[in-house]
């Protein structure tokens, strides 16, 4: 089966979520990958959205974090102060799953502005739940398309601190941070991608692991599950 680089990225991200884990999910690419994981190897994955829906089991991919589908299929729906104070800050989340507009070599994330803060060239949506997701979940996975515009150093604005970012999944491969090390290292390439492509898409001198791996391509089961997620919403992400 043929597949796109975006599909490879989503499948690779989904594989990082284990069955039974509790995952605080950002909207967009993270939500798509988390829902794919729940439909394939991790049916017991608990999806938590910042709208206060805990254990959501959407039958189709939600467009927003507050779609009725999430509330109607959730184990519990709690208020926004409760989701942030009792559930996220309290450390009840195994994994945080975030997107990013820009990321740097330490995993710090910018979702606020490109250009100077007072006179931005691009005004981005802002922090949302990301700063606390990034610092309260036991580990953080970031999914972002890799390009010189997204992989930058220094960031224009540090919106979220990347200390707990363990893995970054891109359309070219995966970067990881070993415990104790500060910088993300390219550890895996998707089929068809090369170290040169990854270096060209990175705004700093990219570290590459000695034992660089290759991501297994998506299986037929994974692709079928991914494509069965509502196409209309997928096209927008």
């Amino acid at each position, binding site marked *: 089966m043929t597949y796109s680089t975006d599909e490879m990225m989503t499948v690779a991200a989904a594989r990082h979520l284990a069955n039974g884990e509790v995952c605080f999910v950002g909207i967009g690419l993270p939500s798509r990958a988390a829902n794919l994981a729940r439909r394939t190897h991790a049916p017991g994955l608990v999806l938590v959205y910042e709208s206060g829906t805990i254990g959501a089991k959407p039958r189709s991919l939600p467009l927003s974090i*507050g779609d009725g589908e999430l*509330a109607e299929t959730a184990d519990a729906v709690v208020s*926004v102060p409760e989701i942030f104070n009792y559930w996220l800050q309290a450390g009840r989340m195994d994994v945080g799953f975030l997107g990013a507009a820009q990321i740097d070599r330490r995993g710090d994330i910018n979702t*606020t502005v490109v250009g100077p*803060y007072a006179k931005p060239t691009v005004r981005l949506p*802002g*922090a949302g739940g990301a700063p606390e997701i990034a610092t309260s979940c036991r580990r953080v996975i970031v999914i972002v398309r890799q390009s010189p515009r997204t992989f930058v150093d220094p960031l224009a604005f540090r919106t979220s601190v990347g200390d707990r970012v363990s893995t970054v999944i891109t359309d070219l491969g995966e970067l990881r941070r070993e415990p104790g090390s500060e910088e993300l290292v390219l550890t895996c390439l998707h089929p068809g991608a090369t170290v040169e492509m990854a270096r060209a898409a990175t705004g700093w001198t990219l570290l590459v692991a000695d034992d660089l791996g290759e991501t297994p391509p998506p299986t037929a089961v994974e692709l079928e599950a991914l494509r069965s997620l509502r196409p209309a919403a997928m096209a927008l992400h």
Partner: protein
Amino acid sequence: MAVLTSLAEAITANVGDGDMVALEGFTHLIPFAAGHEIVRQGRQDLTLVRMTPDVLYDQLIGMGVAARLVFSWGGNPGVGSLHRFRDAVEHGWPRPLQLEEHSHAGMANRYVAGASGLPFAVLRGYVGTDLVDHTANVAPLACPFTGERLTAVAALRPDVTVIHAQQADRAGNVQLWGICGVQKEAVLAARRAVVTVEEVVEELQPRPGAIVLPGWVLSAVAEVPGGAQPSYAQDYSTRDNAFYEAWDVISRDRDTFLGWMRTHVLDLVPSTT
């Protein structure tokens, strides 16, 4: 004590020029009809407050009613940018928009402090981010027990909070359910509160996870069926995702935007039920 009134009268009586106004809602139950009435009544120089300013705030900002925005995430969820918001911030059109931005947890706790009648709330957050450099309403605070560095966020006290709910009874007690966001805290933090509801019923029936706001914490209640569209009211309507996608096109161009607002907001007479 809440009075049952028309939407127009509720806005006239409770929203003034220069006010700090929170039209809250977390994707669900966004008070679009009330926001449109604020535009029709020509309010100016508002400080708009909202955790998640989306299409309604894009409309208000594009119509120039806001001087300032206090928020934590401004976008069209799942679709992309808010073009009117970006135009105001990046190009000052139709007027410059001053920003004060926070994280969701920070905003939620600012409302909690306001609702609790306390000057500030305490959380773990903001540390290491650049957010702290751009507002005076976030300050480091040493824990008097452990000495660890926490973050204090100043209480948020809007002049008026506006929300949409499913039901009210004739005494003005309001019940909302489904995704409840931060509406309870936003109402209790505000000096005045206006609620639009899908329907006025004889008796409020208990619902799983529902929030009941007694009439005596509200200023005005107006029956506005469909008042959250294109957002939604669980068990009454579904989110019009196609409109949110269409808004991306409508809002890109200033004239297209103004034309849409004229036809769909300015030229409409509000419901007077």
